[in-house]
């Protein structure tokens, strides 16, 4: 279970306790390697106790497109640990709130299942205890109608079930932490709606900032399946109860992200910011920039420790994209210059684990990493890394596949699957070079990073 060696360096044997010749007690104590904690601030956040901790680059869960099976790979030695065939096609894969599990969500079957990556950390008060075990399927299955948006924030995962108006099924949200999944808890915090919607929910401690669909007659949305309101819900006995609703403030709401303080939602006319101030929940709105005349922010990216967000405006289903930075502190939005490969469109976006980089992977296999400079109003994002991960032509991309990436949860590395060359490469964002590459004997469709996440001090 633990990684510490069982080499004994001292053997103490205490025996004895013979009571009047009857009854016997014998104790053998073998001292093992101690756990030494040197308390260096090496980016371990406040979790820099090295007691029983494991130094590991983590694991990757790679979807083998041909076999529709998840392959779990140990990044320390690039060994395949196990393969898990998936029951259904058309899954959405992501990691759990604490990076321990792969979350397999299927909109068609309504099931959300979990595969334990086998690497996790527990806080045992006096020490942190890391565990390294073989990957395994979890017995927990969440079910609902059309699970669609899966949002991870601060250790929690919110599964938004869109519901189905044809079947008369309303939308709902379930929020699980890794501890819930480990305990296979039946008590899952849930928000139940009365109508269906294509919505999204952001977990914030024991609050849930979630979309609210009003009556179609009242709705400011052009497409009323998209909600136009945001509500704050508070958890009581496994159920989220409404605290406040910001009604009609976000027409055609799509896309959301949260930092420690703010939640940002994409609307057709700008972005809506929700945050708590002096115990009261407040909302504010940032209008679209001029460059967003024909498109709107439909995806938002944030970092727990960042006080800025990046919004992506593009036509539905991808294609060319305009990036904007969103600063809730100054209530401002500004355009970000992004240069992609020839004829390329972005296929994936993410913040790096430290929040220092915002990475964009495009359809030509080019990774662009933006780095923030300055502070407040003077803050701007510049391209710091621009790197092609393949020399092949995008035209050679096997049908139905694309480049995909996963950012590490404990270092500024990005793992990119390259189906053209059947490789997986690792890019070090700090040095801007590819510092690792392995060949795969299958076509990778999705890649997920799993392991013991670290957060860097601000």
């Amino acid at each position, binding site marked *: *279970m*633990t990684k*510490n060696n*069982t080499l*004994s360096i001292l053997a103490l044997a*205490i*025996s*004895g*306790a013979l*009571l009047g010749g*009857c*009854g*016997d*007690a*014998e*104790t*053998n*104590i*073998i*001292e*093992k*390697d*101690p*756990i*030494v*904690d040197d*308390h260096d*601030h090496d980016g371990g*956040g*406040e*979790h*820099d*106790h090295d*007691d029983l901790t494991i130094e590991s680059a983590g694991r990757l869960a790679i979807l083998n497109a041909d076999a529709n099976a998840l392959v779990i790979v140990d990044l320390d030695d690039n060994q395949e640990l196990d393969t898990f065939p998936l029951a259904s096609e058309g899954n959405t894969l992501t990691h759990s709130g*604490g990076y321990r599990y792969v979350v397999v969500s299927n909109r068609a079957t309504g099931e959300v299942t979990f595969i334990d990556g086998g690497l996790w950390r*527990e*806080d*045992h*008060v*006096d*020490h942190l205890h890391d565990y390294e075990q073989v990957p395994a399927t979890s017995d927990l299955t969440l079910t609902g109608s059309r699970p669609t948006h899966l949002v991870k924030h*601060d*250790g929690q995962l919110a599964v938004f079930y869109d519901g189905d108006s044809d079947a008369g099924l309303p939308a709902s949200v379930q929020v699980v*932490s890794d*501890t*819930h999944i*480990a*305990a296979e*808890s039946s*008590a899952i*915090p849930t928000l139940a709606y009365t109508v269906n919607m294509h919505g999204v929910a952001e977990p914030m*401690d*024991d609050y849930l900032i979630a979309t609210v669909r009003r009556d179609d007659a009242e709705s400011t949305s052009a497409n009323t399946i998209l909600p136009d309101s945001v509500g704050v819900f508070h*958890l009581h006995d*496994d159920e989220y109860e409404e605290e406040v609703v910001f009604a009609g403030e976000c027409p055609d709401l799509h896309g959301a992200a949260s930092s*420690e303080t703010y939640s940002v939602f994409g609307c057709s006319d700008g972005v809506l910011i929700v945050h708590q101030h002096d115990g009261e929940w407040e909302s504010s709105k940032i209008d679209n920039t001029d460059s967003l005349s024909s498109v709107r922010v439909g995806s938002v990216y944030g970092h*727990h*420790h960042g006080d800025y967000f990046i919004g992506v405006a593009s036509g539905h289903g991808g294609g060319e994209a305009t990036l904007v930075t969103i600063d809730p502190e100054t209530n401002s939005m500004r355009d970000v210059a992004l240069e992609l490969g020839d004829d390329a469109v972005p296929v994936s976006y993410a913040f790096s684990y430290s929040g220092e980089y915002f990475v964009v992977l495009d359809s030509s296999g080019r990774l662009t990493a933006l780095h923030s400079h300055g502070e407040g109003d003077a803050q701007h994002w510049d391209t710091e890394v621009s790197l092609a991960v393949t020399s092949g032509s995008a035209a050679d991309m096997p049908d139905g596949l694309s480049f995909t990436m996963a950012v590490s949860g404990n270092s500024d590395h990005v793992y990119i699957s390259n189906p053209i060359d059947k490789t997986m490469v690792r890019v070090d964002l700090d040095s801007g070079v590819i510092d690792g590459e392995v060949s795969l004997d299958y076509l990778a469709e999705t890649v997920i990073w799993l392991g013991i*996440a670290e*957060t860097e001090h601000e």
Partner: protein
Amino acid sequence: MRQKYLAVAVCCALQVPTVAAETISGTVLDDKGVPVTGAVLRVEQSSTRVKTNESGEFSINSVKPGTYSVHVMAPGFGHLHQDIVVDDGRHFTVDFVLTPSSIEVIDILATPIHLSVMESASPVSVLSGETLRRQQAGTLGDSLEKLPGVQSNFHGNVASTPIIRGLSGPRVLVTQNGLDVSDVSRVGPDHAVASEASTSQQIEVLRGPATLFFGSGAIGGVVNVVDGRVPSDNTTRGEWTLEADSVNDQKLAAVNATTGAGNLGFYIDGYWRETDDYDTPVAPDNDEEGQNAPHVVKNSASDSNGITLGTSYISDNGYVGIALERFNREYGIPGHSHGGEEAEEEVYADLSQTKVQILGEYSFNHTLLQRVQFKAGHTSYEHAEIEQDVTGTLFENDTDELRVSLMHQPLAGWNGGVSLHYKTSDVAAVGEEAFTPPSTADMFAIGIMEEQRFGNVLVQLGARVERVTLDAANTLLPAIAAHDHDEEDDDDHDHDHDHDDEHSDETTVTRVFDVSQEFTPVSFSAGVVWDFTEGYNVGLSVSRAQRAPSASELLSFGPHIGTRTYEVGALFALTGDEESALGLSQQAVDLETSNNIDLTLRKTTGDIGFVLNAFYNQVDNYYFQSETGLFAESGHDHDHGDEHDHDAEDEHDHDSELPVYLFSSHDAVLHGFEAQAAWQVNAEFNAQFFADYVRAKLKDGGDLPRTPPLRTGLQLNYQTESISAHIDVTRYHKQDDIAEYETETNGYTLVDAFVSYDLNVLSQDVSVYLKGTNLTDTEARVHSSFLKDLAPRPGRSIGVGLRGYF
């Protein structure tokens, strides 16, 4: 009242056989010659049980020639044991005459040999029938606390375990049908016992050392919850209850039913209980100023349910069956606040258990072997403590147990047998409150019990030897920053309990040990019961019992939120070193040995009866926790995410420190008495009196903590065919024999009343009842409770209920 195998000539008349058949028939009568309806006759050499009809008549068929002991039991009468000899091809008619008893006598089912309140050398009590239904509560300790010698460690209505003669925790074993209940209730007072009274048929208490039958965990006694989950007969019967109570808005529904056909028996029970936070006569927190504080114990609500299914194969010679139980309970943990005056954290426990039991008994017509009793169980227990809807700690206990008792035919007049017992438990706690490392305990034991009657004297002897191993591969000794509060007052309240700050730039080392222990406890006991004159007996029991200390007593190292202490096991000791205040103990880990003498005087028959027990229990190497004067970080913060959140840090400011309690062993002496007397005034009125007292001291001076006070009680009962009324007045006296860090607890008097009326609805027996508890709405703080200052007993409560039998 009669002793085992006591043949009383006046009570029975062996008549001349008339018909050639292997049948015993006859009538059970009372001492005035009135037939006794519903008396149960059990032939001990087989598993045959029959009941008398309305004329008091019975018939036992298919009896082979031989010598039989017949055991006759009926409510309101003393038990009768009578030997009869059946010759070849004869039909016996035999009448049994029962003598009324003012104290109810019910046999214990926990042990393979018969024990009852009036008949055994060591003291036992049984709660069953209407009395059980009247006294059953949501938690086990509270259900039993009106029994002499048993008190509750009352934990805010949500959890409680019985304290027997001042002993509890790892010294009192809780069993279900004779098999370990296998939960984590022995580890913390906030952990509920995974057993339910409302579906049980009787609850038995063995006071004093019972290691002979149950092993290490039973040095202070045993509580056995009995239900009919594996039916030994398939007569269709059942019982249901619906009840509502005012003080906590309790709603209870419980049902159990037994039926069957041919050789098969079936059983089902289920219950559902929901309670809200309970009301108190005063502000629950002793420290809370003013009368404006609400008189409610916050976070004391609970929600539990369970279902048990069982089936058995029943033959003339015995039965064997299997039962499956699912038990769920969710309850708030009151007083579980870490923020002091700040808003209490809603911490609750969610426990579930799956229990499989295989029980059987088979009688032989063999020259040596008379009867085999077989019990096997598998339990899988899980208990999550949830804070802010995140599992903080997860306790798990997986136990397998097997117990086989082989009872021999009388050998030179001795009745008894050999018992083989195996148990293995994996106990783990994961998360914030994981103060005990994962461990595996294995136990194998062999025991022998024998008894024989020599004239007026019954002799009971027993011995048992066990082998217990306890293995914990990763026992941790962290270098905690334990410190004395007096020395660093201001500074202490400023630091923000971030571990970084506390040990800044230091290197700390957590030592890791692979601990394996092997214990060989040996227990033996000898007892005599002497019927020195008609209707009286005196019993003397001398025992020496040994116990292996439990994993939590030895290996703990960490914060125990339930008791708000930082627990350190006996494997460790204070070093006196400033760098690391605690190190490995150099003292050997010894067995705990109890040397117990029990003296009992009983008046067994007549309108006035009594049972007086006195005991003296000297315990060598008594393991207990004592305060070290040090304080350590609980490290318990409520932010379970990846990062500290600033709010959490502010909130947990300076309240996250816990006093360090260290387990160590010292010799202790516990002595005391229990008294029970009953007066059957006439056919309707019965008055009962009881008192109990225990003094628990260390041999070197000082009292043990949380020792229940002297208690006296009076119960008045009125019973007609359709009305049953009871008034209970119990006085808990002031406790001022206190341990160093304890405070005195005031005495209080509880008044409870109960009245029920029997109806016949749709040819079913239904009673409607009204009950009142704590009628004077008095402030009652329980000295033996960890929550004495935070959660007094509930205030006045009125309950109504319906109970039916079919």
